[in-house]
């Protein structure tokens, strides 16, 4: 029995310890918002936060998550909500598939850097592939989220 804490809720699951977190979260726990894109830490579709650190869940075993706080796209945080609003205002998604990972990566960026520059965005977001090509909108939406946040204060 392995116990995981995801978005503040705890889950007890029966599984092999070497199963990547991605598949434990999707197939065993049933939270399918975190996506599979490559399985080899190349695309960011599977991005989650573990104790606040951006992590590619396809490449980390379940055992790594034990005793830590896991955060997925099904969760909510202040930065994520500002980003969601900006994503919505900017009509960012096309097929939408990569956007869970994009939003988690962007959340991690805003958690670390309050007002990111374009270079910060390039650095933080280049692990996430969007085959539909929504990059310019993502960039704009991240800036916009920062503005929304400042307006809210």
């Amino acid at each position, binding site marked *: 029995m392995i116990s995981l804490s995801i978005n503040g809720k705890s889950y007890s699951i029966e*599984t*092999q310890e070497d*199963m*990547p977190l*991605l*598949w434990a979260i*999707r*197939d*065993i726990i*049933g*939270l*399918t*918002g*975190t*996506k*599979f*894109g*490559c*399985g*080899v830490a*190349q*695309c960011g*579709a599977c991005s989650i936060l573990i104790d606040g650190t951006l992590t590619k869940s396809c490449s980390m075993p379940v055992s790594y998550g034990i005793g830590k706080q896991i955060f*997925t*796209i*099904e969760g909510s945080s202040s930065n994520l909500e500002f980003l*969601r609003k900006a*994503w*919505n205002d900017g*009509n960012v*998604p*096309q*097929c*939408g*598939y*990569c*956007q*869970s990972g994009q*939003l988690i990566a962007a959340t991690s960026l805003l958690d670390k850097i309050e007002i990111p520059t374009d270079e910060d*965005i*390039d*650095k933080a*977001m*280049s*692990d*996430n*592939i*969007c*085959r*539909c*090509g*929504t*990059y*310019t*909108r*993502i*960039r704009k939406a991240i800036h916009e989220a920062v503005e929304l946040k400042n307006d809210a204060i």
Partner: protein
Amino acid sequence: MSNIQQINRRDFVKLFGLASSGIILGCTISSDKKEFVPQTDGKFTPNLFVQIQEDGNIILLASRSEMGQGIRTSLASAIADELEADWKYITVQQATGNAKYGNQNTDGSRSVRTLLEPMRKMGATAKAMLITAAAKKWNVEESVCKAENHFIINKNTSDTFFFGDLVVEASKVAMPAEETIKLKKVEDFKFIGKTLKSIDLKDFTHGTATYGIDVRIPNMKFAAIARCPVTFGTVKSFDSSDAEKTAGVEQVIALDRIVPPTGQFFGALGGVAVVANNTWSAFKGKLNLNIEWNYGDNHSFDTDKFKETLTARLQENGKVVPGSRGNVSAAFSNSEKIIEATYHVPFLVHAPMEVPNATAWFKGDKIEVWAPLQDPQTARAEIAHFFEIPLENVTVNVTFLGGGFGRKSKSDFVVEAVALSKKINAPVQVVWTREDDIKHSFYHATSAQYLKASFDKKGNVSGWLQRVGLPSITSSFKPISDYASGLELNQGFTNNPYDLDNFRLENVKAEAHVRIGWMRSVVHIHSGFGNNSFVDEMAFAAKKDPVQFHLDLIGKDRVTVGRSNHSFNSKRMKDVLKNTAKNAGWGKSLPENHGLGVAIHYSFYSYVATIVEVSVKDKKVKIENIWTTIDCGLVLNKDNVKNQLEGAAIFGMSLALFGKISAKDGAVEQHNFFDYQMTRMKDAPKIHIDIMDKMHEPPTGVGEPGVPVMAPAICNAIFNATGKRVRSLPLVDFGMV
């Protein structure tokens, strides 16, 4: 043509299991002709529905797969506009793959083109019925009533009725005759042509949209399939003991190849399936298989050698293609100057972010499938055919698509899932790994083309010869299709936008050794690259400005009527080019090491011109800016068109910079995103999209036409910056990225 009907309630409940109250309208849209795959001809009417419920909610049953084009939103906007609805009451439900919903194929940028008018008429019909009902209630003339923002208003008294409060009454009034339905004027559109947010945004930002890979059925299994590295190779023998020992693995099962009958369907490759109780165990079990293959006829396929073969064939005459005209040989012998060049595009793969996957449940006399499909109807017909189940007992549920780009219109992955479900007698989800997707696709064909042109004494272009060799998509449906088909050559080769008196197109033999399929903008990728690269070379040879040279070559204003009802209008082509040149500041002085490149292309009846600005430092190319103008006629949803063109620019960049599938000993060499690379955030340039205001023209393609211009515009910009011509893609092969 459309033809609107009021729907019998009981039928509606039967069809959709939806509450049957309110106004229910259905209309019939005729299936448009589909290229390459024969149509299944279930003639059910009607096939598109809108329901207005008593609470005012309006549900549209959308017949198109969602794959990122915002189609659902666009179609709903057409109904809402004519109906004078309030956008917040509109929802869209996805139809299942069933002939009663009309042709559901989402290839070929056709959705908006074929569905706009029926959608508008449905909205207008419902509005007329609501007005009739309100007039009755008030006991006034209908002309006194008007619809506005989900209310019918009495113009004399300013009394109002909410739409929802009228539907019971309205559903009883006779439906107005189609001829009496008046559509709004373009100037009065409230939603059409405006910026509308995707109706699925909330799901996309919360991880709650259900893609194929997210489908969960009670007691379902998960499976991965090992397929022969060489296309159409078969299993000689296999040892599954290690795979079976893998935790979570339940069964290992051999699957035969399912060969499609000549001329239709996709079949399935076959291989060895590992069935498990979760995806990862299936993946891992697959890696633990020991399989010996019969590689078969394609074992010797080598893309480097194939490129040489094609290039050698370009030296000799090919088959002259209809559409050739004038006397090119005479033009060449009377010429002042001749230029020639050879261009290559490698094999490419779609690699949508969501890998191919399907969930199937073979229930004996019935089959149900859940999958991200661009063409659910072909999938349905194919399943009925291969598994010998009557069509009506096959249900195909279309999920959200995590990208398609043409890959998900081939239903091989669904056939695999059904075959496996039948064998294990349980619902099963087959998931392709990314490696499977890269190594076993229906590839966008490679091409080699040779171009030769002459200038006469006055410096005008007097002759144009183009030889093209590209493996045909037809080969996936008919063995031994060794030449590109007429339909394929009609994508920018026979019908380039230039006014040429002496033009000869020759078709050169090119066999297929992998499965060939269509990918976003299809053969236009080849014609766009060849034509625009060569015209740029001609402009340089003629010492003329490339934009002006294109304009001169397009020639005088003329309208060319083809077989479709969309004619080619050279003025519209020139207008998008002039507009792009203006937006890009063409002619301005550039920073050192920067260059501008231009390309134009006509595809899916839309006109596109693009200018790219690159900078080149230490031989590395960086795309700085992209300016694109499209004329796609009437625009349903402006922001969606913009989004599509931004995406097309990135897609086109990816293929120009990185796109290459190569094969040795018959096996594809690339594996995953580390060796089949994509444009990433750090490479993404500034993209400036402009849409011509052509609201009085019929709508034309939007999803694909932005792609073909990208590679040539980038290469022309590199030439402008460095003087180096890139005639063979991708740039990464030359150490330029």
